[in-house]
């Protein structure tokens, strides 16, 4: 076998291997299990809710320490920085597993992005308020953050139960 032939074969096999690898990974991403994505979203929302709940417990003076609340606010802030496209991938509307997202969420994507991007500045204020330690300010910031969650839930979430 001449060197040239070996080279060509090697190149071809490398190309083939690469094609297979990329093809597979692209395929895997494309075929990501929507039910799994819904579950991921629920986990994310649970993290968000857990954070909100911890701050709320602190505000209500019901057992949460300032430290718990600060951790909660950090969790809220972390989620608020996530890309909404990752949390709400196409094809995960109501009907997929126990998804509660209305199809309108994707139909009105501009609106959805606007709603989502309102969470972060509110979460930043909540985080800052917790670092400041003024309970009235924390309560106020908690309410404001909650409002940003509510706008999306009001328009795009189907009723649970």
């Amino acid at each position, binding site marked *: 076998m001449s060197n040239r032939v070996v080279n060509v074969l090697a190149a071809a096999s490398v190309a083939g291997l690469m094609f297979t690898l990329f093809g597979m990974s692209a395929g895997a991403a494309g075929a990501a299990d929507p039910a799994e994505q819904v579950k991921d979203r629920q986990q994310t929302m649970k993290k*968000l809710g857990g954070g909100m709940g911890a701050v709320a417990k602190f*505000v209500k003076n019901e057992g949460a320490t300032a430290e718990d609340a600060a951790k909660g606010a950090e969790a809220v802030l972390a989620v608020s920085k996530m890309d909404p496209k990752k949390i709400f991938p196409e094809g995960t509307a109501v009907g997929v597993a126990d998804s509660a997202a209305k199809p309108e969420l994707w139909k009105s994507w501009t609106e959805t992005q606007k709603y989502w991007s309102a969470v972060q500045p509110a979460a930043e204020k909540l985080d800052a308020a917790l670092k400041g330690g003024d309970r009235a300010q924390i309560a106020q910031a908690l309410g404001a953050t909650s409002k940003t969650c509510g706008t999306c839930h009001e328009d795009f979430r189907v009723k649970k139960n």
Partner: protein
Amino acid sequence: MRRLLTAAALLLPLAFAGGGARAAGDTPAGGASAGEGSPGDAVSRGAYIFNAAGCLGCHTNQKDGGEKGGGQPLAGGRALATPFGTFYTPNITPDPVNGIGRWSDADFIRALREGVRPDGANLFPAFPYASYTRMTDRDLLDLKAYLLSRPAVAAPNRPHDLTPPFSWRFLVPAWQWLYLTPGPVPDDQAKPASWNRGRYLVDALGHCAECHSPRSLLGGIDPDRYLAGNPDGPDGDKVPGITSAEPKGIGGWSDGDLTLFLEAGLTPDGDVAGGAMGEVVRNTTSKLTAEDRAAIAAYLKTVPAKQ
């Protein structure tokens, strides 16, 4: 059900007699004392009543089935999907032709207390006058003053799209005879003022029972299931019970849980209300005073538990 309706229709003459007798017994009372002696004119007091009574949401076609309806405030046209058909809410701006601009004080009181329009037609109870009937004269007139201070919109009303026999307006007096007890409810002197105020906010203004209680086949609220939840609420949504039951109610909620929820829609587990309740929080409960939210909590905690 048809038989029930026929029976109800046969009882019509009684309805008028009964209704008249009860209307005559009207007494200005109620947890209504709140607001008395407070500063400000009728319009600003009315603005508070307007929020507490949640008029804006239904009378504005802001969101049409998840899409933006683009309607002007209070110009009506919002579709209310119910098991009886779809109601389209009317224009309540001061427009003299399409709205309530020509209504007298007596007209307004009659509509909200007895469910009768100035032209004598009976209003369908999708308009929650079985709750508003408990409002005091003063609150009703303050509310009217506020509504008339809003911009007039010349938007015509859209006819309802109802399934017979529910579309038969002449049967409404029978419904009223069955389910409407006109007039304010006197305060319970044995209970604290905050409880009475809470009951007034829940029953008269907030009309909470309209969604949070199940309805009979004729669309009346089942008094035995008051606030016990509604499996078939507006837009087909399930509405949770809010009696002092646990877990199917708010029995496990602290006062702080309740007031924070009413203020910000945040539940004890960190979730935030959406759907119709999200709208109620946005338009109504978040706009109340902290004292009024506490009064609602105080009252709800005493509502007998129903699972």
